[in-house]
């Protein structure tokens, strides 16, 4: 567990903005909901990264988790889509304007149940966006039914037992070619913050599967997504350090115990290994780790897999720098010669 607080962040960031300018509306979630903790870390990460707030596009589906995009960076536009289909909307928005810094917040029901299809194809395309699943194993907003990430054998308050295996979103993501795959826990704020900053710096889909207890419906004794269970069982595989490109910090580190990952924008993630042999840039290790964890019922957190050089969807399309949404008619309507040429070919 790495839950000790970071040294106090400076009152303003590289844009001269303070953290309040990354804030949003008041949360209407239950007191103590894991999602609110994640919201705070998202706010902090955007602040510390010095992201231009109005460039942020906040995408979500439907659910308690999906509501949270209203609770941070309200200087950016937000889009609460329909249930389970946020990936498509985010894709469209990015096609229209790839200068947006897109963050999606979803729930386990929204992503793994109704949203499984779109999730698969989002990952396959490697759309550049941060995609957070606030994973509580239940449908919070509809009052606590099991979702597809509920652990096998876990119990609802009502005593109902889940007899289907959980979908492991991280394993699916790696299988589908995702280049930034992390698992965390809303109770592990420091780790989460580091992973979020890395995700913001990564170009490509960055998946964060964050266990985020539902205090109202899934935080009881026999739950495997409760605060207590997660706190007791969390095994971080690394300590996450993040050095943004705009900070010129050189730290000596021992490549035996620390893995340094250079991200697309020049930032670095420094992974202080807590599992000596774990290489987060090796896909086979990542699989092995996840499956071992599954077999053993372990709850491992950290940056499970990272592949910073992977081409993202928008690069593949070869779009110009100017957003399509900003193009004028002069740029997009071919001239009379073009039409005449087509007509001639049809005569």
């Amino acid at each position, binding site marked *: 567990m790495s839950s000790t607080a970071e040294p106090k962040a400076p009152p303003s960031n590289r844009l001269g903005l303070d953290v309040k300018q990354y804030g949003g509306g008041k949360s209407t979630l239950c007191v103590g909901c894991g999602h609110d903790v994640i919201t705070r870390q998202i706010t902090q990460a955007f602040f510390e990264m010095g992201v231009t707030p109005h460039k942020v596009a906040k995408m979500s589906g439907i659910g308690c988790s999906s509501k949270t995009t209203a609770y941070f960076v309200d200087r950016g536009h937000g889009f609460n889509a329909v249930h389970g289909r946020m990936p498509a909307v985010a894709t469209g928005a990015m096609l229209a304007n790839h200068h947006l810094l897109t963050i999606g917040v979803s729930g386990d029901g929204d992503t793994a149940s109704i949203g499984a299809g779109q999730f698969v194809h989002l990952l396959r395309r490697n759309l550049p966006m941060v995609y957070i699943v606030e994973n509580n194993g239940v449908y919070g907003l509809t009052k606590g039914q099991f979702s597809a990430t509920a652990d096998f054998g876990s119990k609802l308050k009502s005593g109902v037992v889940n007899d289907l295996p959980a979908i492991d979103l991280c394993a699916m993501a790696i299988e589908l070619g995702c280049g930034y795959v992390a698992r965390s826990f809303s109770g592990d704020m420091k780790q989460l913050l580091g992973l979020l900053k890395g995700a913001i710096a990564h170009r490509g889909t960055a998946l964060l599967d964050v266990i985020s207890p539902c205090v109202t419906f899934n935080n009881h004794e026999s739950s495997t997504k409760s605060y207590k269970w997660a706190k007791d069982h969390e095994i971080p595989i690394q300590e996450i350090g993040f050095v943004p490109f705009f900070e010129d910090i050189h730290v000596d580190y021992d490549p035996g115990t620390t893995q340094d990952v250079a991200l697309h924008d020049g930032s670095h993630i420094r992974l202080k290994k807590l599992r000596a042999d774990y290489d987060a840039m090796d896909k086979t290790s990542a699989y092995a780790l996840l499956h071992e964890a599954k077999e053993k019922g372990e709850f491992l957190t950290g940056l499970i897999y990272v592949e910073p050089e992977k081409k993202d969807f928008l690069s593949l399309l070869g*779009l110009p720098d100017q957003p399509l949404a900003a193009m004028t008619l002069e740029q997009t309507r071919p001239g009379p010669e073009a039409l005449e040429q087509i007509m001639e070919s049809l005569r």
Partner: protein
Amino acid sequence: MSAVLEEKIPSEAPLGPSVVNDFSIHVATANGSGSQSSNSILMRAIFQMGIPVSGKNLFPSNIQGLPTWFTIRASKDGFIARRRDVGVLICMNPETAHEDVRTVHPGAAVIYEENLKLHTLRNDVHFYPVPFSKLVLELVHDGKLRRLVVNMIYVGVAAWLLNVDREEIQKALSKQFHGKEKAIEVNWTAIQGGWDWAEQNLKKADPFRLERMNKNAGKVMIDGNAAAAIGCMMAGVNVVAWYPITPSSSLAESLIDFCREYRKDPITGKPTFAIVQAEDELAAAGMILGAGWAGARAMTTTSGPGISLMSEFVGLGYYAEIPAVIFDVQRVGPSTGLPTRTMQGDILSTYCLSQGDAFHILVIPASVEECYTLSMEAFDLAERFQTPVFVMMDLDLGMNNWMAEPFPYPDKGIDRGKVIRTAEEFSAHTQKYKEFARYRDVDGDGIPWRTLPGMIDNPAAAYFTRGSGHTERAAYSERPEDYKNNMDRLSRKFETARLHVPKPVVEGEGSRIGVVQYGSSDFAVQEARAILKRKGIATDCLRIRALPFTPETRHFISQHERVYVVDQNRDGQMFSLLSLEAGPDAARLKSIRHYDGFPLDAETVIEGIEAGEKV
């Protein structure tokens, strides 16, 4: 008398006066046998002879082997609807040959593979047996090509028989295979071989012949999907997300081709568009809403099943007020239905698509020209009214080839609606209206203003988009007043749209009988009106080009004693909507319905009107 010398059974086919430039050629083949090229060449040659012509492909939902028919209609008067009676039948498909022969009218010409021995089937038509399989062996040496090239032989035979210009055939051939010299050569050998054989062995006995006219000068020939694609490209579409489905795929595919050619930034050489094949229609709908929200002109193209799948997203687009253009190239439903047949079956369900109170703007082109112009219009409407707009085409219009005047270059710019794009525009807006409130009706027309994500660095410019209840300032709200206020504004916006959607086209004046049609029915209706007029029944007509109805429609109904509404669907969907619109005048409406998957023909309309008029 039968047409060939060796024919034994005497034909009693009537040898009436010759029928010039006014008959149909019906070609029956098997799918995937390459007959499409042959048919195109034949049709194009006729087109180049200056004779008005149209072609219809009746194909199966299959890639290879099932029966398929192609009908070429030459019409000196310029009628290009489907015609029931067949003048010339070309029978290449053993599977359907017997039935094909049975369905033609007396006096028809029947060209067929002689092995099929069809001449015993009836004696009131002119039979022209042709040894296609023998000929192809002689004419084509590459065995692999024979299956494809055999169909070129009938082009030659028919051309000789019907008096098609040999030169025009050659030109059409070159056009078909432009640049592919080898293909041109092989096919020309086959065509010529057919021609020569016919010249030497057949004796013209039927009355059908073609003669050069001068009606097509400058005209083009194009299918509605390609025409719509040109419209989309010229409208400056930025983002296209689609999922393949017949009969809409070729709209997207033409658009890809056109955009690759004509939509590169002159400076960077990069595309000024993005076209994405989505994983399904839900995703396609989501993508275009995302893109429309972020300020792009975005569209998708699909058919009925896709429309159903987009239903939830369309409701979001309506309620969160996001522009998007959705092409529905209609095919026969319900469900998978007849995927390769035509119908206007989605009008009603699309008009009220999605849960809750919602109606949508539909535009309905009736010709390839309108596929072009109304596609452009649809983008303007979508952005003006910030809502999904549907372009309701159908398979007949979308996938068949139609003659048209060349499309005019647009004479005006585009309407991007009430968008605030820059910081300057934003301060001008707030100065004028005190503040920016995403969903406030500041202009009295029900249409609010919007900003775009990522464009303006001003905290007051950002807003939150959601499908749940919201205030004028886009804040979450469950208050009854806020909900009602917003819903009433949406109604007001729809009323405004009523005055801006394409107006109907009215023809004629003063008749007691009115006809209302829409979309591809127009061809048959116009032909029917002309015939009825000759028969002494004068009609006026109103062609609907959009929903909601504009005031003209109601007026038209009130001005006619009886109004025949022509629907290509079982349930008279437009008839129902008009009945609602007409109020007390609904009693004047009568319904003509055609719904067997074939394109509408004039006779159906005539029969409907004559029955109603008790002629």
